[in-house]
């Protein structure tokens, strides 16, 4: 079947199968930052934004993005660099395999929540698994990133 949607700001027309998953579609279109860590929507590695909302692309049929705007980290490079640098400065990216999905949700959280506290941050990002870091460096990085303009004075 034919699918038309916007990927990282560009119009895309492509052929898909009825059972093609959004994850496999965006990877086939060169968005290789999107990873598969499980097949059961548990890990958060495949997070992309559809109409500005983070979704697990392993659990979304490609057909559902007909006419919609999809963003992967490839389309958010400047934000990724900025937020990612905070993670890197903690040494928190480690193997890096979960970083793109994690950063997608960090960016989504920043848009969705105003001045979240530590519990809200953890809650929002709970669906993003990481096996390397033990999560503490990610938390330090996210707090510093959210406070990058120094408003909290800490």
């Amino acid at each position, binding site marked *: 079947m034919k699918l038309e949607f916007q990927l990282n700001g560009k119009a895309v027309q492509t052929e898909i199968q009825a059972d093609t998953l959004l994850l496999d579609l965006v990877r086939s279109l060169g968005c*290789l*930052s*999107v*990873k598969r*860590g*499980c*097949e*059961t929507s*548990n*890990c958060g*590695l495949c997070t992309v934004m559809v109409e500005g909302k983070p979704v697990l692309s392993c659990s979304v049929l490609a057909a559902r993005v007909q006419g919609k705007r999809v963003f*992967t*980290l*490839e389309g958010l*490079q400047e934000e*990724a*660099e900025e*937020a*990612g*640098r905070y*993670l*890197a*400065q*903690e*040494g*928190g*990216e*480690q*193997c*890096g*395999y*979960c*970083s*793109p999905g994690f*950063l997608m949700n960090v960016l989504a959280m920043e848009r969705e929540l105003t001045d979240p506290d530590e519990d809200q941050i*953890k*809650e929002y*990002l*709970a*669906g*993003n*698994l*990481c*096996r*390397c*870091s*033990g*999560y*503490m*460096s*990610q*938390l330090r990085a996210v707090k510093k990133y959210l406070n990058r303009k120094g408003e909290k004075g800490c």
Partner: protein
Amino acid sequence: MLTGRRFGGPERGKEEEQKYNRQAAEDHGGKLVGAAVMKKDAMALVTGRPVYTDDIAPRECLVVKVLRSPHAHALIQEIDISAAEKVPGIQCILTWKDVPQKRFTLAGQTYPEPSPYDRLILDQRVRFVGDPAAIVAGETEDAVDQALKLIRVKYQVLDAILDFHEAKDSHILIHPEDNWRSLAPVGADNSRNLCASGRDEHGDVDGILKTCAHVVDETYHVKANQQAMMETFRAYSYLDTYGRLNVVSSTQVPFHVRRILGHALDIPKSKIRVIKPRIGGGFGAKQTAVMEIYPAVVTWMTGKPAKMIYSRYESQIASSPRHEMEVRVRLGADEDGMIQAIDVYTLSNTGAYGEHGPTTVGLSGHKSIPLYRTKAFRFAYDVVYTNRMSAGAYRGYGATQGIFAVESAVNELADRLSMDPVALREKNMVRQGDVMPAYYGETAASCALDKCMARAAEMIGWKDKFPFRDMGNGKVRGVGVAMAMQGSSISKVDVGSVSLKLNDDGFYVLTVGCTDMGTGCDTILAQMAADCLDCSYEDIVVYGTDTDLSPYDSGSYASSTTYLTGMAVVKTCQTLREKILKKAAEYLDCTADDLEFDGKVVRRLDTGAEITLKDIGNRSMCFNEDALSACESHTSPVSPPPFMTGMAEVEVDMETGHVELLDYVAVVDCGTVVNPNLARVQTEGGLGQGIGMALYEDITYSQTGRMYENSLMQYKIPTRLDVGRIRVEFEPSYEPTGPFGAKSIGEIVINTPSPAIASAVYHACGARIRELPITAEKVCRAIHPEVFRGEAQRKAD
């Protein structure tokens, strides 16, 4: 906008990175070793660059999958592939009749491997639920999936050994085959289902235990936890211009994979090249060549590129998890709590195949008993084959299992003596300068364990919190402690090597044979090189790892890279410095003794004449017969242990038995800390995994040997809501045999959570849990036995 960015190219943003790294070095007195610089690959990783195996695989790769046995133990009587072969797009289907019949091991160990040669690529006998029965390769995943469904296998189902207590000397044999062989004297005997067996002792253990005022005699059980790295197993292969088999694999052991593939395919190693790109985590899982053989054999037989990507399901059911171990500890002490003797017996379950079986078990005794000064010890073990998934290497490598047992026994001793477990340890722990008979007689040349203990107690507020605090709301908080050690490389076995060359304009390329799997070893080796060469971090380009280009390195496992490959860096830099001086002496018309080199300029001490490194680099590329490159190897006769203390505070719900981890503090002595950020995150990450193992990650099997926890839905690794607060500090000692005084850090960090949390739970609620994980159900059963007393009766009714 896009054009401008592209013109700025990859250099854009590097200024900020450089600024940060320079500041990090400046904050550390201008030295790179000890500076918290960013990882070399950090920005590529966080911006999602396509750098992992599946990202760089050619699109035309055949898709490779295997058909897996539904039976725990069976013989393939017939296998009919005729219908499957007709599926459009199918290129190759292999069964046991099509593959070489020489046995090998998938263990990534130095040859001759201690692990027995008990594998074939495909075998007529399948030995666990998930053991491959056929390999299918096709042009699309759909075609392969369809073909897999059309293969008809007639199995003769055999009796299976699912309980590892029943394996030794069972009438059921897992490996009755004639060509099974063990290359090393590890006590293996396939006619008894023994993968290894042995003992080590010092002093009269039984005699001393008889005289002890207190003897703890308990058995502890650790299950076959999964490493669950986020990137599952994967590799692709192709034939290059010269007809050689190139394999790009997410592996920790490229050189071992080359040998394993040579053995498995029965082809010369010279025909094989293995390349490691970025890896999405390893933790030991990828120290076994779990699946490289499948795409490799397809490429070798079809000549076509082939790729295999393990699903999470496959990674859970057919991979290389921790060895399930049951460890019995007998520990005797006098009235004052002075530990006199420790006796450890470990029964280890290697599963269907023997990867890492003979070696992991050794650490369960050799890296737990030496934590204490005792008059005598005994350590005996059996490693048995069963019809479960083969085990492998997982961070901690047997030490984790042994330390859970011994540290739990020490905690039980303290409770029996009504003594503070911190005080008990202070009386008995190993100290710097001690000879450790249970650690191959090595001396603890660097050991700050006492300082780690003191600092951890301070951090958590042990004195105020021990043993428990009733919060008055049905919840009780308890604290627990544990110590740990590990090694730094395998003494007298492991080899670390790097090569280094000076290029035009004076930058260096450091080619490594070890394997950065996210740990940051490329980075810390560059930090060491930069200090040795008095240059900046950016002047060192790191390349790895490729068996055609990298110097031989046994690989990144056994906590070896910082310690061993780090020392190879120090030696190589020294050699190259000498060559640079020699070349400069030629250019400046003097002897090398007349020169000094500050990293940028070589200067004659007498006349002040000088030549820059840049000029040396450029000039050496013209009319020169001394290559400005060096390559040194390092190996070590000793394996200096890092040490650490971990302390946990938990809150137990006295009604449900639910355990919540509130706080975990750890203080580590890894010798010199090469990069404080990376060492910290290694520690926090290892603790996170250890917490998962202690509280959440269960492994259970059906009666027919099917594993239930076959997805991340079932196998619950901790989320960020499950690890409480983790706090880490360092108490560095100085290891005289290590580079810049460094020891290892990668593995030790997983060892303390299980015993510390188990003890904290006991202190909170009195539930003594000796089998991991410590679930609410187990705790509830222990604290409310009355509720469960009628259970069996009710079931019967």
